[in-house]
């Protein structure tokens, strides 16, 4: 069996305990909720776009260490990115946590992807992949729908 420390690396435990950007945004341009029906966890992702660029992104909710850390790290890497870059990162991230290889990323984004690398330990624990992707699915829903109140389920 895989060592549990592969799943719960220090960076994940740290972000799980002390999530960054764990707040609301007063007047978000985009907002969506993610819901994992398996565990009842919920996350709300708030975003402020300035043109095509993510000026601010934050989240709130209740989740396990993995989903909290994933949301926290996501907000850190996404600030200042364009919508296209955010989508490229999600594609790559999704591929890696499910054990695949996504399309190659430009070098600037590779660095950001490295920061998300600790989360890819979930690929050995299939039941936990949804925890790592919940906030990203919510982000995608926010970008797609945009209208506040959109809820996405991890299915």
């Amino acid at each position, binding site marked *: *069996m895989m060592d*549990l420390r592969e799943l*719960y690396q220090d960076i994940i*435990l740290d972000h799980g*305990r002390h999530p960054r950007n764990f707040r609301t945004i007063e007047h978000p341009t985009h907002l969506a909720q993610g819901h994992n029906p398996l*565990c*009842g966890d919920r996350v709300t992702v708030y975003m402020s776009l300035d043109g095509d660029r993510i000026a601010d992104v934050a989240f709130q909710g209740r989740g*396990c*260490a993995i989903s909290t850390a994933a949301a926290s790290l996501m907000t850190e890497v996404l600030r200042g990115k364009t919508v296209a870059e955010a989508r490229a990162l999600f594609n790559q991230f999704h591929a890696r946590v499910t054990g695949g290889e996504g399309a190659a990323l430009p070098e600037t984004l590779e660095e950001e992807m490295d920061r998300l690398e600790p989360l890819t330990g979930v690929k050995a*624990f299939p039941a936990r992949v949804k925890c790592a992707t919940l906030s990203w699915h919510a982000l995608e829903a926010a970008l797609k729908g945009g209208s506040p109140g959109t809820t996405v389920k991890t299915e």
Partner: protein
Amino acid sequence: MRPASLRSLSPAPGGFDPHALRREFPIFANNPDLVFLDSAASAQKPRAVIDRIADYYRTDYANVHRGVYRLSARSTELFEEAREKVRRFLNAADRSEIIFVRSTTEAINLVAQSWGPAFLKPGDEVLVSVLEHHSNIVPWQLLRDRIGIQLVVAPINTTGGLDVAGFADRLSPRTRLVAITHVANATGAVVPVEAVVQLAHKQGAKVLIDGSQAAPRLPVDVQALGCDFYAMTGHKVYGPTGIGVLYGRSELLSAMPPWQGGGEMILHVAFEKTEYQEPPHRFEAGTPNIAGAIGLGTALDFIEELGRENILEHEEALTGYGVDRLSRIPGLRLLGAGQRRLGILSFDLDGVHPHDLAQVLDQHHVAVRAGHHCAQPLMEWLGLSGTTRASLGVYNDERDIDALAAAITAGREMFAR
């Protein structure tokens, strides 16, 4: 039936040795490190049940209630013998009061869909409790949306037991059915169903009891309880999946319209008019889960041989040990179960999400359930999104609880802030 008496495994007169009993469950030989504490989700199967199902297919299999040939007659006999075993298990007055269904869920849906529209009118009330599993909530909501009944919810008290006074308050002349659990799946709270039945009947309401968690743990006597319906499932009483039971009092079942239509449930079919069978066959359209019923019968033999009172004693003693052991873990809060808790230990560990904890427990080979346990309204009531739940079976002993406690402590250390 069984090669050797299970009691021969027991060190104490009357009781049984749970650890020795593990030899009767092949899952433990094939998973030697397994600490299985998820029997409330589904119990493991004794060899007798596994073998009986295979033997039945090998030696006695044919469809039931159809053929005139001997093999079909034998199969029918075995199927009906299983029904008789269930009758004895629940102490129903008559075998015709035992309907084979797929699960507890299907049993409750049968009542909601057959008895409901036939005997309820808009404005009538169905009373449930906060403790219910989704399977004893959603069928009544579907019925509400279909025919306009009201769904009323009885509260729990601060200790997590049914608030009997609050329950009595919510009974009214419009209450036509009380649908309530016997043992709450999320907390192990034992509901005083005797009092519930008395109060409900005084108001003229019928009572359906969800016995999913009670049937494997408590002696159940539907006549002594006086309930009108009792639902249980096979896979939690050490039987196979896909088989469950609805008990219904004869006079109620006889007055109920068919639920599903098909073969088996008819007397005579013509395009102008079809005449239906009497219960129980009226409610068993199509070829039933014959092997499942026979396997369930063997599981009930297994339980009877261990002794219902012995099992209750075992569950009570181990539940007490678990409460004591877990309560001493700092930061651990057991969910209240009122005055009586049986076989289920549901808890919250400060600062550790149930899924993270369950992941650590799995690393220690401890199998538990984490989440809302299909009781989201109860979780909402308690202000929790979920809990970690350990539940007991006949094969568990103190060692399993000790392993659980050690693994929880390891999890606590890992996630401690």
